[in-house]
């Protein structure tokens, strides 16, 4: 296994304390991305959160965002190196980073880590400087699944994921359950593109789904999934994409791309930005519950489904009301949504 000497750690952590001492009383917080920005998805959303923190608590926080790229072999070194700069808080996430966060938490007990998008296992990695943030994408997916079931004319809807990782399967099980809740006769197919980056592949898979009669595609594969919007526009009336992570309908509208906005039924929003902002607020109050995992579901606004003009056009008010009712039922625990976590 891997072991790290105390000497490397101690000398750098010595540095860090002097660093943080000199730079006034602001808390230094860094968002470490194991990938790059520009995914129009949760990395970007997190970055937005950092900007919100800087906006709202600019006098109390000093923020930075670091991208580690997609070469997995450098993530550990990079994360440790960033940790050695002596941050008060590091935000990082996904299953890939669990073991590295564990190392950092051990080596730099003064640094706090907010760990998102994976359920931190405090039994295996007991750290009191870690705060776990989990998004209940299954809950949000349940709601957009309902929307899909209402909107489909063909009684066939699709889920398009990149690869079958745990988070995406969590999306899928929620989505499937949501569809079935409205109409069990609606067929749900899952399609895995094997890519998170190539938009042409997303485009081709989505188009194939549409052409086979699946008129709603829940596109969950980062940049690859962008292609689905183009496919829907190409196909014309009656074909819709359900966006993910951000409010993609709104995004297209803001870009002036009305065609794509008009083909975006709704989006399963994963509000990483707000979650970061909330956590930053609680941190200041000293109420952030380190040592626990908090699930940001529909109740905390961690996930939500978006309602745009298109949504209102396609779905009736009763249907929207039914979705809202389901949302309340999930929050109240009356509906249990399947999960892979």
């Amino acid at each position: 296994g891997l072991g790290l000497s105390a000497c490397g750690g101690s000398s750098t952590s010595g540095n860090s304390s002097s660093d943080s001492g000199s730079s006034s009383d602001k808390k230094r917080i860094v968002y470490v991305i194991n990938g790059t920005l520009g995914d129009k998805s949760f990395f970007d959303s997190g970055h937005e959160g950092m900007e919100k923190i800087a906006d709202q608590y600019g006098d109390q926080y000093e923020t930075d965002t670091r991208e580690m790229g997609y070469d997995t072999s450098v993530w550990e070194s990079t994360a440790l190196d960033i940790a050695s700069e002596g941050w008060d808080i590091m935000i990082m996430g996904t299953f890939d980073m669990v073991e590295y966060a564990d190392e950092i938490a051990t080596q730099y007990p003064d640094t706090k880590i907010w760990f998102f998008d994976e359920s931190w296992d405090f039994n295996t990695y007991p750290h009191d400087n870690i705060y776990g943030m989990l998004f209940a994408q299954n809950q949000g997916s349940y709601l957009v699944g309902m929307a899909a079931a209402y909107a489909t004319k063909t009684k066939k809807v699709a889920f398009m994921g990149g690869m079958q990782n745990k988070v995406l399967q969590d999306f899928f099980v929620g989505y499937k359950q949501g569809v079935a809740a409205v109409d069990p006769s609606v067929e749900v197919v899952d399609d895995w593109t094997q890519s998170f980056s190539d938009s042409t592949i997303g485009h081709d898979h989505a188009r194939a789904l549409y052409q086979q009669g699946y008129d709603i595609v829940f596109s969950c594969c980062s940049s690859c999934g962008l292609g689905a919007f183009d496919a829907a526009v190409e196909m014309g009336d009656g074909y819709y994409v359900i966006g993910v992570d951000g409010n993609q309908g709104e995004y297209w509208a803001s870009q002036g791309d009305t065609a794509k906005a008009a083909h975006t039924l709704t989006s399963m929003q994963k509000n990483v930005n707000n979650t970061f902002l909330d956590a930053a607020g609680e941190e200041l109050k000293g109420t952030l519950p380190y040592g626990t995992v908090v699930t940001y579901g529909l109740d905390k606004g961690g996930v939500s489904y978006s309602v745009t003009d298109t949504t209102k056009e396609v779905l009736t008010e009763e249907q929207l009301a039914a979705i809202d009712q389901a949302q309340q039922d999930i929050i109240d625990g009356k509906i249990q949504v399947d999960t892979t976590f």
Partner: protein
Amino acid sequence: MSDFAATLGGIFSNPNFYFTVLSTTVPILLATLGCAIAENAGSTNMAEEGIMILAAFFGVIGAAYTGSVWIGLLVAVVVGAVMGLMIAYFALYLKVDIILVGIAVNLIGSGLSAFLMYVITGDRSATTSLHSGTLPTISIPGLSDIPFIGTIISNQSVLAWIAYLAIPVMSFLLYKTKLGLRIRSVGENPDAASSVGVSVNRTKMAALVISGILGGLAGAYLSMSYLPYFSKGMSGGRGYIALAATAMANNTPVGSFGTSLLFGFFYALSTYSSTLGIPDQLVTTLPYVATLVGLVIFAINVQRKERKMLHESGGGHSSKAQQVADASEA
């Protein structure tokens, strides 16, 4: 099993499927024609991948900043031509092995396009913030109304028509024109060509520039037709596929059409078959396996033909193919 067969039957009786086959074939066809013409001049152009990605990127930038996709198309073509020139310069004048030039250009292409995308647009994965637009699609009134066929060929991009038109054009160029004659003679026996004052380098350069232009068109198709934006790594290995398709097509334009269509067919099938119940990862290998199998079948055929040729050429100068054949028969 019958379920599987029914699904498959459903796919094959769907005219939209063939529409997809034709449209996914386009960039591969263009790149394959590009590889083929270079190969005819005796230069293996492994750089279509890099040319395509750079042309796709600069085309979008050109289109976005001038507001005209047509100018974008022109930029893509010019970028392709310039890359062709650059490859020619390094391979012919500075004497770099042309396969290595290809590898280098592909490295530069993928790196530079991603790098500049961020620098110029601030986007990291796709230039969705630019409004570069798409080239128009064409529907020929009479044809579009034919039931099955109409669906397949109507609404194909203007570039798709150009690509399919490029097949006879390239055939004409190679077999009926002065330049074509020179290209083939330079590819087959450069010494012979140069001994009668045909500049080998200039002829190869012309072939490589044409090859680059075709790669540029392929790139333009990706970012200004297939999708309305540039996305990182969107060439997706099509340049390598093109190389395979060329090898299988024996470097003829018509053959290139057949082999790129083969890939397009299996690729389209792989995007369709989420409903087939085969693991998606394995389905994704379909086009590559098909290409590999096609390559082997082609190679077996060539082997057979070569045997014949070997006899025909008798005791004269042995061609390169023959030497190789001799050598590996040990």
